[in-house]
């Protein structure tokens, strides 16, 4: 189906199901329970899962396949956001023109930056992209303020022309972003068994985009083009003596991933019409690198998982304050309660960075292939356990595994 083989079709269908069911999956705890704090099924975060998932998928096309580690990808996200917001200021708050412009502009920008930085490889390439992106950030923050509105970020105002839309709604506010009239912020809620599920237009719009993005990247991974990109990663010398010019391939991958970033930026602006310069800073570029590695670079699902993981932490763990902790452990005797809260306190709320840092270290140390590897290990373990009963040692080596007298 859709030019995919059976296994990939199944894979895609699973992804589609997961994406569409996100409002349920992220809301596992009843509203009244203390664990409701861990629910993530509200529109903004779900949108972010999808959007940063797109960003990471795109980044992975470059990094996972070609091995070129760009440290400036956030620049394309930022450019995408600025383009989209400008479209909403000048033309209409319908999100489609904004998103199209975001993809186009960031694609062109990526073409420019890629053309320059792909002249080098390895760390030299990384630093070139970093430098170009940091320049963009610094300029956006100060000198380019007329275009970017500097520190504050570019916002819609009541004075924007919006020639195809309205400058202001009848009740005097800024029109909301919409898809042909369907407002991004409108949601339906469904309460059942104490669980509150929110179905948000914006989220489903992002989700559809994410599925398309995922599908395209699946096709790229399975295509001859994808194979060539992997070849670039392993041996550029052989590549050129085989009659292939690596530059156009890497440049194409760079531009594609830049356009993914632009789409993500455009979507961010469509969900929340603001474009801030921080979106282009090196820390933001570093974030997508980390999402990808954390999830598993070069795998299809990994980057999406990594993106979800980090956004979840940023939004959920940072909100757990001492009050919440006391709420959880109220059942303990007072002294003990205080002690437990005291122990956990440094790791949540304002200490969420600490937990995040520790998790980075743990994941990468013990799961060299990222979260995906964790998943694979679990499924292998599960399969092994199921197989135990039926057929014995299939595929296990017959030889002695280890003997006591060989140390280390």
């Amino acid at each position, binding site marked *: 189906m859709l030019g995919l083989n059976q296994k990939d079709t199944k894979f895609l269908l699973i992804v589609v199901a997961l994406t569409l069911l996100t409002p349920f999956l992220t809301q596992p705890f009843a509203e009244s329970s203390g664990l409701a704090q861990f629910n993530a099924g509200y529109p903004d975060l779900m949108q972010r899962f999808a959007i940063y998932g797109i960003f990471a998928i795109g980044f992975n096309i470059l990094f996972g396949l070609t091995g070129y580690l760009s440290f400036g990808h956030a620049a394309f996200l930022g450019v995408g956001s600025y383009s989209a917001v400008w479209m909403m200021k000048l033309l209409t708050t319908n999100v489609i023109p904004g998103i199209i412009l975001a993809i186009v502009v960031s694609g062109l920008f990526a073409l420019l930056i890629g053309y320059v930085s792909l002249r080098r490889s390895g760390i030299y390439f990384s630093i070139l992209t970093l430098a170009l992106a940091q320049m963009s950030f610094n300029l956006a923050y100060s000198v380019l303020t007329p275009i970017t509105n500097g520190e504050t970020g570019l916002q819609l105002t009541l004075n924007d022309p919006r020639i195809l839309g309205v400058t202001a709604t009848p009740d005097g506010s800024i029109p909301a972003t919409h898809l042909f009239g369907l407002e991004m912020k409108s949601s339906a809620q469904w309460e059942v068994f104490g669980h509150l599920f929110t179905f948000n237009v914006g989220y489903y719009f992002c989700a559809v985009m994410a599925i398309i993005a995922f599908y395209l990247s699946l096709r790229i991974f399975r295509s*001859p083009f994808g194979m060539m990109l992997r070849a670039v990663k392993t041996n550029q010398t052989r*590549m050129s003596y085989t009659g292939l010019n690596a530059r156009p391939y890497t440049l194409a991958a760079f531009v594609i991933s830049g356009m993914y970033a632009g789409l993500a930026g455009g979507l961010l602006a469509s969900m929340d019409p603001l474009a801030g310069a921080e979106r282009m800073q090196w820390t933001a570029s570093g974030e997508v690198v980390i999402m990808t590695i954390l999830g598993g670079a070069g795998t299809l699902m990994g980057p999406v998982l990594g993106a979800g993981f980090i956004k979840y932490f940023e939004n959920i763990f940072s909100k757990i304050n001492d009050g919440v902790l006391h709420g959880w452990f109220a059942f303990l005797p007072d002294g003990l309660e205080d002690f437990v809260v005291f122990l956990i306190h440094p790791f949540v709320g304002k200490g969420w960075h600490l937990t995040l840092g520790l998790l980075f270290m743990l994941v990468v140390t013990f799961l060299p292939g990222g979260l995906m590897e964790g998943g694979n290990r679990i499924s292998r373990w599960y399969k092994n356990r199921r197989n135990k009963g039926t057929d014995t040692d299939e595929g296990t080596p017959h030889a002695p595994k280890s003997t006591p007298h060989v140390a280390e």
Partner: protein
Amino acid sequence: MGILEVKNVGKRFGGLQALGDVNLSVAENTVHAIIGPNGAGKSTLLNVLVGKLIPDTGSVMFDGQSVLGRKPHEINQMGISRVFQTPEIFSDLTVLENVMIPCFAKRDGAYRMHAFETVEDEVDIVQKAEQMLLDVNMQDKLRMTASSLSRGDKRRLEMAMCLVQEPRLLLLDEPTAGMARADTNNTIDLLKEIKDSRDITMAIIEHDMHVVFSLAERITVLAQGTPLVEDTPENIKGHPKVQEAYLGQAHG
């Protein structure tokens, strides 16, 4: 007029004249061996031919066109493929993929991208690659990752990658080094068969005289960057200078 004409090529590395004044003409559809002591400049000469090095002096013509100043991939597209002294393969890819890539390069040129077909859809390319691997006796290793091959297999794989492109000029830098005798013999047979079945010119560097004498129609002996003699295998064998500088007593 040979298909490959090397004229007055010289190359210095710092104080070392790696290639002195090399003149070489390889006739079309022949196997031309280049032998010589270690460090004579044989690999350097190949590096010049494939665009890895730019010579200080001289010219290199392939089929009437100059190769100097062209990028390696352009030279390959002209019809020159090379097997390296230490195997250059795509070590993270499978054996089959390793062979498919040159097929694509041959069919589609330097940068036609197929982003929206699947690899499996390219039936003819898959078939061609599989056939090639069958020819080099690696049909049972199609799905292995190239990095886990033994060294001999890596060499065979690299040769398959070059052969599948059906180059007009095949440059082989010690193709059988480290190969077991049985495989060396297979390789000789394979190269012979290819030579007989299609139009191909080969330049081969080899220290294994058994291989050289079974394949070569002409031999150039290179020593200290300059051709010592160029002649038929029979004459070379008996040439006293060659014996002294290269072959040693065993082959005397």
